[in-house]
Every structure is written in C-alpha cells, then in structure tokens.
C-alpha cells in the first residue's frame, strides 16, 4: 500500500451524554483506537459536537499536527459538517474528517455493552482505515448566470416570472401554446370570491408582457437542456408562427376571412370551431395569430393565401421557419400545469356518447361569455336550457385501479360548489344536485362557501357516488344511491357535469427527463423534501411552481410561484456557487476511452476528448474521459461501469471503501 506521507490521526469519542456511553465502553474504544497504526491522539468528551468539544478537536489538530480526524459519534448525516467546519478552522482540510457512527448504528440498537463496544471498535477501525487514505479536497466554484427560465406561461409561470423580474433579474417564459394565460384563462369565475378569472389574470399577463426584465416566448418549446445549476444551456424552439410579430397589428381580419373554419377550438375544449389562422382568445398575449399549418389550406394544397391578401400590415409570412434560441440560465422553474384526464375508460358516465354529459372545464367555457354558447347555459345536444343539472364528484380521482388517479384532485369540491352556486344564482329555476363522496373544503372561507351553496342557493348535496348515467327519452337518467337516507336514486336530468380528475401536463415527462428532475408515478415532479423543500426539485437549480408538483388551486399556485421565485432569486443573487468536491475523477493513464462511464452518468458530466497522454515516457494522443466537476453530483455509477478502475470517486474511492471492508472483516 502506498502511503505518501506519514498520517497522524486523531480519534475523538463522544459520549453523547449517556446516549453512547450507556452501552459502549468508551474507555475500551479509546484504547483500541490508540493502538491502530497512524493514530497519535485519542480522547473522549461528553458532547463532542458542543463548542467545547469542537474546541478539543481544534486544539488537538494544532498541537499534535493531525493530518486526519475520526470522530466517533452520531450519524455523519447529523454532524459531519460540524466537524468538517471545526477541522477547517484549525487549518485542516475539512475532507480529512471521517465519522464512525456509534450512536444510531451502535449504542441505540445494541443493549449489550460487550457487543456494542466491540462493534464500536470495529466501526472506529474502519473509519481510521478510511481516513488514512483520504486526500485533501477543495470545493470548487462555479459561476451563476443571472437569468432564469420559466417553463410554462400559466398563472404559476407568470407569477414566478413577475416576482423574479421585480427582484431585478432577467426572466424568460417559454409557453407551448400561442398565448400565455394557461388554464386560468379558460376559467369563468374563481372561488371563493367569484371574481371573473380574466379580470384578475389579464392584468398580470399584461404586466408580464410589459416588464422590461421579462421575455416571453410563446408557441415555443424547450428543446434541449445541458449544463447545471448556475449555468444551464437551453435551446428553445420558436415554432414558425407564419405571422411576423413585429408587423401584425392584431386587427383580426385574417381570422374572419380564413376559409378553413372547421377546426376544433382547443381553447373552448373543442366545443366549437376556430379558423386555421387564429389567436386562441381575445385577450391573448401576444395578440398575434398563428397559422395552424396542419389545417391551413395554403400549407395543405399550396392554393388560398387569403390571410396574406387581407393583411394590410403584410405580416403573414408563409416562409417563416422554426427558430432555435440558445440561452444560458442560472435557474429553471418548471410550471407546466395540468390537464383533465381522458374519460374513455369510464363508460358508465356516457361522456363519450352523450353530448350533455360534460366535464367541469367544459362547463367553464359554456358559462363564459366568450365561450361556445356566448355564456348561455344550454344543452349541447339541442341548445335547450336545462331544467335540472347533476354534478358528479371524484370522477377518476381517488381511484385504486388503472382507470383513474390514486390522488384527490383537490380543486373539484370547491369549483363544483362554485358552479352550482353560479347556476342557481343566474338560473333560479334550474334544479342542481351534487353527488359527492366527501366534501373537502380546507382553506380560508372555503367551507363557508360550500355551506352557502347549500343553505342560500338550495343546491342538493347527496352523499353517494353515481353508478350510471344513460340517455333516456332525450334526457339523462342518473342512477345512484343516497347513502345517508339509504335509498335508491333514479333521477332524470338535463345535463351532467363530471368533476374530472386532473393530471400533470403529459409533456412534463419529456421536460423532466431533459432537466434530470425526478418525477413520481403520477407524473408529478418530485420536490426535494415534502415538508421542508417543497418548491425545489432534488436536481439543483430546478424549481417547481404550480400543479406540476401536485394538485392545487389558484391561491396556492400563486403562493408557490412566489416561493419558487424567491428560491430562484436567492440563487441568482450569488455570484458563485460552491461545488461538492466529492466527485468522480478519471485517471487518464488508465482510461481506455470506452465511453461506458459516459453512458451511465445521469448528469451528462462526463465528456471525452483526444488528449496527449504521457504514459511513463510514451507520449500518445488518447481518447480519455474527463469529468465536469460542477456537473458531477458524486453518485459513483461511472466508477463501477469503468472496467479498468480509471474512474474513481473522491471521498469514496475504491481503496477507501476496500480499506473499510478490510477493517470490518479483520
């Protein structure tokens, strides 16, 4: 074994009051440690992590010129940083400290002193064996690009961007559809105050568009992400709009004159049609149409060109190409939002077969003055005003089977109360019944809101999930059971509204993969800590805003958007980041250049280059791996993929781990 210098190791054994001392014979541990080769100092103390304890470590390092420290104490997850700090203060490299975990792994579980002491000694020996092979490591620095990217231009993305921009940093919003606004722009009114959604959202959209620090890329998608916290390189694909944004005045003539008008209108949940050249809604930002090339006659047949002819500004440009914008960002916020689930597996609700069975989001559009019925409540089958309506809760939510989602969609109880109330208010002669399993209304003024629906607006709430909805004599027959009265319900109604489960936008999986952000089985992005780090992804520099992280309503989304923004601002306010030095390192003399390590690296931290290598006097150009220490997170996957042992992990090197193995099996 090669030892470059004579190691001088100090061992510090903590009593942790009686936590350790009660079941570990501290004196014997000290004696055993002192006998180990390389150990020049061994002492114990009541509470090693206390200031006085740390002082002992610092003094010993200076007096005995220690080159390495072993602290036998609680879990390294608890106090490793404490003792590293102490070492650093005494002039020793902080990575020359190892912890033997003799509390969580020994004294707390082994009640027999003999056993406990023996195990503590072995763990101490293993830590000593490891620290003998430790090398001083230097934490590196990496630059922070003072610009943030927000993926998704709904209320979550807009709010995050506004907050970041107000703090003085540049922000770019990338939105897939032709306008920002997201789901909220499709809503009619919002609970519990019944404000008109557009009235509160539109000013925010305008603010974002007008903000000098915010750049909005609509009809654009993130195409490629590389880099790491502080400096992500992102390629954004600006899809060809076929309309020159700088020339268009937003007059809307092109949309009126377009002959291809039979295209399902996504914004109105495909309840009516739009033209091939269109802006999704009147308040769209930017107020510039796009040509849907798949449905445009000009693009399909080469003939037509009406929009171009009628455009006085000459803004229509059929030759426009997709454009790639490459930009560097210090932080990225994911705000990709949600959609409702598909209901094709719920045959019993007849959603596919009866036009009068609709989802809640469709009802929002029907209720909206700009919607397919101009705000009149009517049946889509015959245009007649309904006399009776049934709302069904938890459609696809709280499902244990593969038809739906296991979680509660959280927002449905409240919006259903809202819908019921609005309908009873506007159309008092319409009878409204809500079938529920539980009414869940935690939130300020939420339960009061629901009670108002029942008490003031006379909405019937029936506990019991509906079993079946079927067309019957031009009306809908709803079969259910009232679980409280314990009686069968068989009622005819005119419209049925399904509170459909929400799910993360399906594109989020692709985005998460690009960002190496983790995602759960329901496609919600995972937060770094469910309680303490709820807006951070475990991947450094990636933050979460809105429903992409979990179901939530508008106030919660806005709150989370602000929280994500402050985390971003906190990051961008730094000029440099300190990087973890326990990263992989490749020895060029051993590297075969085979790329196995590169293939298993989850961070794209390994690259290959042709470099001249001096292998004991033989100079030749070889293809060798190099690790970007700012990107590497230190998992070690590459070290095992490497057959020659060229790739090793600093702080957890092959030889260090083998030394621990040997010490344990001695």
């Amino acid at each position, binding site marked *: 074994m090669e030892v470059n210098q004579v190691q001088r190791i100090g061992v510090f054994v903590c009593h942790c009051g009686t936590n350790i001392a009660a079941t570990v014979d501290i004196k014997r541990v000290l004696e055993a440690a002192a006998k180990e080769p390389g150990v020049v100092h061994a002492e114990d103390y009541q509470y090693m992590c206390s200031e006085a304890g740390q002082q002992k470590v610092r003094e010993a390092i200076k007096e005995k010129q220690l080159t390495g420290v072993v602290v036998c104490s609680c879990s390294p997850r608890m106090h490793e940083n404490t003792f590293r700090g102490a070492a650093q203060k005494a002039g020793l490299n902080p990575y020359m400290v190892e912890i033997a975990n003799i509390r969580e792994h020994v004294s707390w579980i082994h009640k027999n002193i003999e056993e406990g002491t023996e195990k503590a000694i072995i763990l101490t020996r293993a830590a000593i064996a490891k620290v003998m092979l430790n090398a001083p490591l230097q934490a590196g620095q990496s630059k922070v690009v003072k610009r943030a990217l927000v993926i998704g231009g709904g209320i979550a993305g807009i709010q995050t961007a506004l907050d970041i921009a107000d703090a003085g940093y540049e922000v770019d919003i990338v939105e897939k559809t032709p306008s920002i606004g997201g789901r909220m722009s499709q809503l009619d009114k919002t609970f519990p105050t019944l404000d008109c959604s557009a009235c509160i959202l539109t000013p925010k959209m305008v603010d974002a568009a007008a903000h000098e620090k915010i750049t909005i890329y609509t009809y654009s998608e993130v195409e490629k992400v590389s880099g790491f916290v502080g400096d992500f390189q992102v390629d954004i694909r600006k899809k060809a709009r076929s309309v020159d944004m700088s020339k268009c005045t937003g007059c809307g003539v092109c949309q009126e004159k377009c002959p291809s008008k039979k295209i399902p209108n996504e914004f109105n949940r495909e309840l009516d049609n739009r033209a091939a050249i269109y802006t999704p809604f009147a308040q769209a930002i930017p107020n510039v149409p796009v040509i849907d090339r798949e449905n445009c006659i000009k693009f399909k047949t080469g003939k037509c060109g009406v929009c171009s002819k009628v455009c006085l500004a000459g803004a229509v440009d059929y030759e426009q190409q997709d454009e790639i914008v490459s930009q560097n960002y210090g932080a990225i916020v994911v705000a990709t939002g949600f959609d409702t689930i598909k209901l094709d597996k719920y045959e019993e609700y007849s959603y596919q077969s009866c036009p009068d069975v609709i989802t809640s989001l469709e009802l929002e559009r029907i209720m909206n003055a700009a919607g397919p019925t101009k705000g009149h409540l009517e049946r889509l089958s015959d245009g007649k005003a309904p006399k009776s309506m049934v709302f069904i809760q938890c459609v696809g939510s*709280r499902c244990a089977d593969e038809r*739906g989602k296991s979680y509660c969609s959280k927002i449905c109880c409240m919006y259903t109360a809202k819908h019921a109330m609005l309908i009873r208010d506007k159309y008092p002669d319409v009878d409204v019944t809500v079938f529920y*399993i539980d009414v869940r209304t935690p939130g300020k003024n939420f339960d009061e809101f629901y009670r108002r629906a029942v008490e003031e607006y006379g909405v019937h709430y029936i506990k019991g999930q*509906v079993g079946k909805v079927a067309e019957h004599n031009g009306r809908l027959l709803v079969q259910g059971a009232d679980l409280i009265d*314990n009686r069968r319900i068989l009622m005819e109604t005119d419209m049925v509204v399904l509170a459909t489960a929400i799910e993360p936008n399906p594109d989020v999986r692709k985005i998460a993969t690009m960002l190496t952000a983790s995602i759960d089985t329901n496609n919600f992005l995972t937060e770094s800590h469910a309680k303490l780090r709820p807006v951070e992804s475990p991947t450094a520099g990636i933050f979460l805003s809105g429903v992409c992280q979990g179901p939530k309503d508008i106030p919660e989304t806005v709150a989370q958007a602000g929280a994500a923004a402050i985390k971003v601002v906190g990051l961008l306010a730094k000029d440099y980041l300190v990087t973890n030095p326990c990263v992989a390192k490749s020895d060029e003399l051993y590297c075969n250049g085979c790329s196995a390590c590169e293939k298993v690296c989850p961070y794209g931290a390994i690259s290959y280059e042709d470099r001249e290598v001096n292998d004991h006097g033989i100079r030749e150009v070889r293809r060798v791996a190099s690790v970007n220490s700012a990107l590497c997170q230190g998992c070690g996957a590459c070290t095992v993929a490497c057959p020659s042992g060229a790739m090793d992990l600093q702080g957890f090197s092959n030889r260090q781990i083998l030394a621990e193995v040997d010490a344990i099996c001695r």
Partner: protein
Amino acid sequence: MHKTEKDKAILLREMSGANVDKCMKCGKCSASCPSYDEMDIRPHQFVSYVQNEDVEALLESKSLWKCLSCFACVERCPRDVKPAMIIEAVRQMVVRQRGGNYLLPDEVPELLDEELPQQLLASAFRKYSK
C-alpha cells in the same frame, strides 16, 4: 367449532379475497346495483358490516338471495373492493352453516330443459351447493 363474529369476519375476508379496508365509502357499488331496492342490506353496507364484524346480520339478510352476481359493483368500484365477492362469500357461509346442499348434481338432469342457459346452471350450483 364455535366461531366468534370476529373469526367469521376474518373468514369472510379470506373467502371473498376482497380487501374491505380499501373502501372509501363512496357508495358507487350500491349506486350501480340493479337489485338495490330489493335489498335490506345494501352492497356498500356489506363492506362496512364486514369491517364492523357484524356478520350475523349479513347471514340473515335477504339481500344475499337478491344479488344477481352481475358484478357491476366489482366493475365500477373505484377502490377495487369487490362487494359482490363479499356477498358471494356470505352466501357460501350460509350454505356451509346449513350443512346441506340445496342442489345435488344428481338432481340436475331432471331440471334440464333446452332453453336453459349453461351459465344459469353454473350460477345455480354456485349459489345452492357447497
């Protein structure tokens, strides 16, 4: 051997293979049931009766013999609880307790007629014999 209510409830869980603890009490089983009005104890109640270990009431319920085993409740249950399987298990229990077969294979030929669907026979066996 004397069984307590608790033993019987455990037995019912085993016989039916239904996990009653998954039930979220939404009542969709009852809402889907075509025989609901004929029943004294409703499908969703079967689940909670087993949870509450009130098996005696189930054994005496006339619902047992009203269930068509159409499995609509099993099909639609969002929690995969399988109420029909519980009802089936209670029926089994009743039959076993009574000790005798209501339908013996030897009696079948006499009952056969050409119109009779095979499925009915199988179902009758399931219902009326051990």
